[in-house]
């Protein structure tokens, strides 16, 4: 047993988090920053933070993840990080020549109370910010929220720093894809493209964190939303924001700042959430849905109907980020599966928890939900009554192995497989991939557990 000290008995814990289902804000901000073309994320704190964030993102994407740090030492911690940040800005522009430096704070600089805009202004005054270059920032205190909030905050800062309203509306829709994989962003753009809609997506990590091997390294890969595009978001007709937690703040900020109305919908994971994305886009943009998308939809429904017997009634344990967990829960319920244990580590709030309970209200049997919860509790629930399938990040494989339960990797981080950054799980195609993954997991287990007598050729 790997997690040999996890007991079936649950003792209430108020102070100790064990096996967290979240991490801290800055990494989310770093990930979002990488979705701006030519951007160098910067961690204003101790160098441990950026080292950890770069490592974690690198392990997940198996791609270069560049970022810089203010490299606080004790002195900076006492006297503030202004000198470090000024020096860092100078060095970054001189040595690495980014278009944008995106600064996020850490628990350290937040506790100190460094005023980033003031420091950046000083840097600009001192000529450390070259003409046409940008330094943006967001506040990401590690002791508030989770990596999802960090992503949301940096995404909102893109609006705060760039979005402009010229008064002339463009036939463009802003897409805020949420804290999803690069390929998911690509797929969302493709779907909008099929609808014939011109879009600006931000952030956009596609081609950045799933890039090619060519023998030539590009510090600033092809992908990412450009600053020009970000500016134009203020002139778009509307914004479709996916995932209330990760994308909501930016969408609302854009509405407030530039009067761009927004629709905040679920992440388009699963049939109905994808329906919602497409129907929203269609209505917002006033376009017709092309046959190509309806066809993909039909393929997905076809798989569901063909394989329904294998989904039906299967109990699932689900842990991940709140936007994903909500969309996945709805998806599983739509398959007549039974999400039994649902945890997100992010303190997503009462309203969020209520939404989860609403979605699962007709699921047979008790549905246990904890927001925020940790993976120890999740594991203890499983020990009390097992499930048929686990969905979560790589850490869940320790539970899956101990309890011998089929397991699908989804979410962040996935450290031990490839595919998640190349093959989307959003949209109908992504939904078909998820269906395949669920079926593979369940049917592989059925094959394994069948006696010789029961072993099936056809399924």
């Amino acid at each position, binding site marked *: 047993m790997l*997690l*040999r*000290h996890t007991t079936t008995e649950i003792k209430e*814990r*108020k*102070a*100790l*988090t*064990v*096996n*967290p289902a*979240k*991490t*801290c804000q*800055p990494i989310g901000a770093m990930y979002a920053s990488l979705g701006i073309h030519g951007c160098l994320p910067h961690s204003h*704190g*101790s*160098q*441990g*933070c950026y*080292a*950890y*964030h770069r*490592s*974690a993102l*690198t*392990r997940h994407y198996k791609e*270069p*993840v*560049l*970022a*810089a*740090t203010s*490299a*606080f*030492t*004790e002195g900076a*911690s006492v006297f503030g990080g202004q000198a470090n*940040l000024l020096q860092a*800005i*100078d*060095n970054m522009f*001189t*040595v690495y020549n980014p278009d944008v430096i995106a600064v996020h704070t*850490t*628990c*350290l600089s*937040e*506790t100190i109370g460094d005023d980033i805009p003031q420091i950046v202004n000083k840097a600009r005054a001192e000529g450390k910010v070259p003409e046409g270059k940008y330094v943006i920032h967001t506040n990401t*205190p*590690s*002791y508030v929220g*989770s990596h999802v909030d960090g992503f949301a905050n940096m995404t909102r800062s893109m609006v705060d720093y760039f979005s402009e309203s010229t008064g002339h509306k463009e036939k463009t829709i802003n897409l805020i894809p949420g804290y999803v994989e690069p390929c998911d962003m690509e797929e969302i753009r493709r779907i909008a493209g099929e609808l014939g809609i011109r879009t600006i997506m931000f952030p956009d990590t596609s081609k950045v964190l799933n890039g090619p*091997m060519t*023998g*030539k*390294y*590009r510090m600033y890969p092809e992908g990412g939303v450009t600053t020009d595009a970000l500016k134009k978001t203020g002139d778009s007709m509307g914004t479709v924001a996916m995932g209330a937690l990760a994308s909501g703040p930016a969408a609302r900020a854009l509405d407030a700042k530039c009067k761009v109305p927004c629709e905040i919908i679920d992440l388009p994971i699963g049939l109905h959430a994808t329906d919602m994305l497409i129907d929203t886009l269609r209505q917002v943009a006033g376009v017709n849905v092309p046959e190509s998308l309806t066809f993909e939809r039909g393929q997905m429904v076809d798989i569901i109907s063909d394989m329904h017997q294998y989904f039906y009634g299967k109990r699932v344990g689900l842990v991940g980020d709140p936007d994903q967990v909500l969309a996945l829960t709805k998806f599983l319920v739509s398959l007549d599966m039974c999400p039994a244990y649902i945890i997100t*580590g992010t303190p997503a709030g009462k309203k969020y928890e209520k939404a989860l309970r609403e979605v699962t209200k007709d699921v047979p049997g008790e549905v246990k939900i904890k927001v925020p919860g940790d993976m120890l509790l999740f594991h203890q629930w499983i020990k009390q009554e097992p499930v048929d399938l686990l969905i979560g990040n790589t*850490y869940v494989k320790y539970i899956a192995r101990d309890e011998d339960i089929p397991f699908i990797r989804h979410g962040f981080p996935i450290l031990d497989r490839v595919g998640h950054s190349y093959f989307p799980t959003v949209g109908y195609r992504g939904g078909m991939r998820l269906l395949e993954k669920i079926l593979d997991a369940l049917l592989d287990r059925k094959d394994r557990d069948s006696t010789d007598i029961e072993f099936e050729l056809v399924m």
Partner: protein
Amino acid sequence: MAKAAENSEEKFELDGMDPEKIKEELLAKYPTKVARKRAKQIIVNKVGADEEVPVIQSNVRTVPGLISQRGCCYAGCKGVVLGPTRDIVNITHGPIGCGFYSWLTRRNQTDPDTTPDGHNFMPYCFSTDMQDQQIIFGGEKKLKQAIQEAYDNFHPKAIAVFSTCPVGLIGDDVHTVCRQMKEALGINVFGFSCEGYKGVSQSAGHHIANNQIFKHVVGLDNTVGDGEYRINLLGEYNIGGDAFEIDRIFEKCGITVVSTFSGNSSIDKFANSHTADLNLIMCHRSINYVAEMMETKYGVPWIKINFIGAEATAKSLRKIARYFGEQKLTDRVEAVIAEELPAVQAASAEVRPRTEGKRAMLFVGGSRAHHYQELFNELGMETLSAGYEFAHRDDYEGRKVLPTIKVDADSRNIEELEIHPDPERYNPRKSEEDLEELRASGMEFSGYEGMMPTMKNGSLVIDDISQYETETIIETFKPDIFCAGIKEKYIVQKHGIPMKQLHSYDYGGPYAGFKGAINFYKEIDRMVNSKVWGYLKAPWQVNPELAATYAWE
């Protein structure tokens, strides 16, 4: 392994290029202040008489914005030194991130079934998950409660608390909390003031970890166990099972490992470690403090050994045998070497035609950048450039420079324990005469020659290498393999150059000892000869002209 000193006026060549000129290129783009600083950390190696080498500035602050490989003090303390000890509940006191990122991400293997209680908390991540309330009102209460909950849920024999950045700033007194909880729970509870901003790198964390383990654990159990040649292995973290391989060899030789700091370790073994008769140091940087303190307090001498490389392993075993000075052990060690080496030699002979003459670069850690040059040597590969991530001058230049190292402000902040011989337990393992005799025979105690004296003249030695420098030397030399950590992995590979992680071994290993050497040979052969590096160009890029076979009319 030291290279003979050459004419000091000589201009050195490195891979057919002038290393001084390359150094200039590396610095050219930097702002003046940065260039001045980095110039002291980028050294063209030159081994003089008595293995004298140029001074290299190290263990100094990272330049903000320059992008280095380094992590923080917490990482060195919680991640590196204490991480591999299986039976302590290690609680990170701070926001969730620090605990999360150090959760199972180092590949310290551990075998709980060799500890009577079978405790293994390494797959768990414990955190106080500090919230803004604690930042405002202080986190001691939550920490105390967390320790209580850890005890209630897991009943460990020890709990350790690791402070993250805000803890120091808000003034939580973790040591007092630990003392109180130690009393309340009746188990060992101790804390580390290893806030991320302490020192200039992981190195500060190693020191803090060493101090606290020495203060709170070493010496708690005076039982002298069985075994004839009782040693501690220090600075071996059992990445990919290295310590298991070394243990295998020790066992074959009849050498008893009292404790390993800290691969596959148990707190009980630390408590008992002062009863060993010799300390062996693998990673000098991370653990020499413990060795020093143990010698002062208990009289256990230490020697530097190295089990990376088959030759180095053999040499280290012979050194140990020489220390104990018994023919029986010498014979057994020789028998083991004679038994193990043929397979290693066969393996190297098999791959060497494909590795000979290839060129490597190593930028990692505080010892591996040195040790792994042994293995590359055994493959006939040259190390063009190397450097440490968080080492000090002694790791580069040898401990002989220790007296000349100025303690700067960042290091002065790290507690230096004042250690005295234990009134009861101090027990010199060898008489002064024996030691003298051993020294005379070439045995060096408390010594480490450092990396630079073992490298070729003209090699580029770069401390705390930056991303920019990394890219530049890669572009310049196009090495056949580059060794560093996960953050560098894919950057290097995007250049079309295979990259070997020497922190995590790319999830391979073990590479220590004899079997480890064989693993490494095969791995490097695979990497430098992989077909994939020939696939980078598409046919239409190789041969782009349009040849429209059935061209449009």
